[in-house]
């Protein structure tokens, strides 16, 4: 595939029942120049120990004894799951195998899929931290003639690299800090304009400075959109304050600037959507009427918090978000045979901005399932139950539903055939107060099911307000702005 490729030798450990799979893995690796050894005694120096972990292997004493032997050899193990990765943690060994299990689980797990490229995934995963993996995926490296060592053993890795890749703690790229609150001050000054320079003159002057910063390499690209957004949002909430004056031209200009600022921050909007949203936002059940500076400040800061949340979500998804309040977080409970439907549902919900937790996007190696599950269910407000006969038979689905009911989550059953299997139904009947009406996802209604689900997840106006006020930056920014106002007064 690539020139001058250097390949490591690999050892393989597997249960007898998985010998057919092991043979296929061996054949694939051998044809790619990887030499395979199966006995510890054969290995003088090796970098990789491929461990094929399956339900059979988990139960095989011979398999674990063999692993314990390898462990003494100081090899680096790499777990290859022949079952869904999430199931690794459902029943971890607790006896004498535990120590070996701990040794195994701190290393990379590859879940072999049923796709045709499954072994290519395995080859790539032999060194997942190698940046050339990215080149490989993009297909650029071969064209450039620069990828010479896909498996990363030919070129020594600098010792400092691991440290360098850890997070620095610097906010990127949306630094929502108190300096942006100056936009509120500039906006409120507009209520008592200096007639010699015009109402928006100070604002425009600051925009020009921020534009220069945005244009500079390593400048502050997001300060300008934030400044514009805060200034215009503040004024839109200040319509009832004395001294407020917006001409028709100002209204058009404000809408254009708001849309552009939101766009630059990762929030896409349609024409006229922003004024309507701000009006609805101003009509949330606030305690104070919008006739004081403090009340306008409060609304502006809450709006900043909302946009900040949306920009973070846009960055995480590398997709623009719609201007809308985030829905309640939910947890998806499904049986493995229904994974296709669950995948489709989650993709649809996430595309509409829902905050969905499910095992395939959340469980990482080294995190015990129990802990992950408890944490996820604890954070969620809803449990979406894909209620099928397979789910009825799954003890894990049952565990998830029981945990959800115990923790007071609302349970939304989603049925693929119009009914809930008897076992699950009796479980749901045990807590009728927490069960939402069933959503039907039979063939003719499958396309509309995500919309129905999303409608259940949406917050009421008072819940939206409570959520905004509970976000960490909200109190901090309010306090900072109040202090700034007091010092100016």
């Amino acid at each position, binding site marked *: 595939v690539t020139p001058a490729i250097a390949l490591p030798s690999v050892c393989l450990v597997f249960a007898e029942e998985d010998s057919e799979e092991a043979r296929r893995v061996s054949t694939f690796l051998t044809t790619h120049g990887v030499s395979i050894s199966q006995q510890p005694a054969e290995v003088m120096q090796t970098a990789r120990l491929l461990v094929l972990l399956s339900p059979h292997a988990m139960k095989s004493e011979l398999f674990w004894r063999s692993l314990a032997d390898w462990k003494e050899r100081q090899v680096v193990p790499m777990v290859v799951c022949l079952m869904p990765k999430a199931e690794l943690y459902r029943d971890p060994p607790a006896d004498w195998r535990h120590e070996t299990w701990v040794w195994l689980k701190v290393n990379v797990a590859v879940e072999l899929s049923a796709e045709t490229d499954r072994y290519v995934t395995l080859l790539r995963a032999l060194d997942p931290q190698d*940046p050339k993996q990215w080149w490989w995926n993009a297909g650029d490296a071969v064209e450039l003639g620069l990828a010479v060592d896909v498996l990363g053993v030919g070129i020594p890795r600098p010792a400092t690299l691991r440290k360098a890749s850890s997070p620095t703690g610097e906010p990127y790229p949306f630094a929502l800090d108190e300096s942006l609150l100056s936009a509120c001050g500039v906006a409120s000054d507009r209520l008592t304009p200096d007639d010699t320079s015009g109402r928006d003159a100070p604002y425009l002057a600051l925009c020009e400075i921020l534009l220069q910063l945005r244009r500079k390499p390593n400048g502050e*690209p997001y300060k300008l959109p934030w400044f514009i957004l805060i200034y215009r949002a503040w004024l839109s909430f200040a319509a009832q304050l004395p001294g407020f004056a917006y001409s028709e031209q100002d209204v058009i200009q404000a809408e254009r600037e708001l849309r552009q600022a939101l766009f630059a921050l990762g929030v896409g909007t349609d024409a006229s959507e922003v004024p309507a949203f701000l009006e609805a936002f101003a009509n949330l059940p606030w305690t104070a009427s919008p006739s004081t500076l403090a009340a306008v400040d409060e609304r502006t800061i809450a709006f900043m918090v909302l946009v900040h949340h949306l920009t973070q979500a846009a960055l995480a998804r590398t997709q623009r978000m719609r201007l809308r309040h985030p829905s309640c977080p939910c947890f998806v409970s499904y049986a493995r045979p229904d994974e296709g439907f669950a995948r489709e549902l989650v993709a649809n919900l996430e595309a509409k901005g829902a905050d969905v937790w499910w095992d395939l996007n959340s469980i990482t190696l080294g995190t015990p399932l129990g802990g992950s599950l408890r944490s996820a269910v604890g954070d969620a407000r809803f449990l979406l139950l894909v209620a099928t006969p397979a789910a009825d038979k799954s003890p894990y689905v049952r565990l998830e539903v029981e945990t959800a009911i115990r923790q007071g989550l609302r349970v939304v059953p989603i049925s693929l055939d119009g009914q809930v299997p008897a076992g699950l139904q009796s479980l749901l009947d045990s807590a009728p107060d927490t069960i939402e009406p069933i959503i039907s996802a039979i063939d003719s209604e499958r396309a509309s099911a995500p919309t129905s689900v999303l409608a259940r997840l949406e917050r009421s106006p008072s819940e939206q307000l409570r959520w905004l006020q509970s976000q960490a930056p909200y109190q901090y920014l309010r306090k900072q702005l109040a202090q700034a106002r007091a010092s100016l007064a």
Partner: protein
Amino acid sequence: MNETPKLDNVSFPGGYDITDIIVAVKLAEMLYAGNMPTGEVEQVIVQRFLGELTARHPGIAISDPVQLRAQELLDERRSLLNSHLKFSWFCLAHWVYVLVTVRSSLSLSEHVDLSTFLTPVRGALLELGVRVSEEECLAEVDRFVPAAVTPRSSLVFSTTPPCAGAKS
């Protein structure tokens, strides 16, 4: 590349323009390894880019097309509807290629102070959210350096590299 920028309504923060990336790399190859684009597609892309650049700046003798394109991309940041990362990706592609050729002993500028090339790479990385020291950056780039000049890389670097075989 000279059309009015199309609004990217989907991806965010965006800015990864594959045509710009190809141009950045090919210009680096021409300027620092002394190779002209050999592929038909590459030739078309580079020629079209240079033609369009000349058309956008009539009456100016373009001595440094990379600098001019970089300036254009910085100017595009005036609009909030353009991704500010377009400039960062362009610079990263160009200067990383230059660094790799220098470290491979394939560059015509191998004796130039390395910080000349490291500074724009680190700046582009910083804008993309990655902070690295000069040493870390160089160590990472070195991992891409071919261990030896191979038949494949000889084909890519179609003229005789200045230090062919020096790394073997």
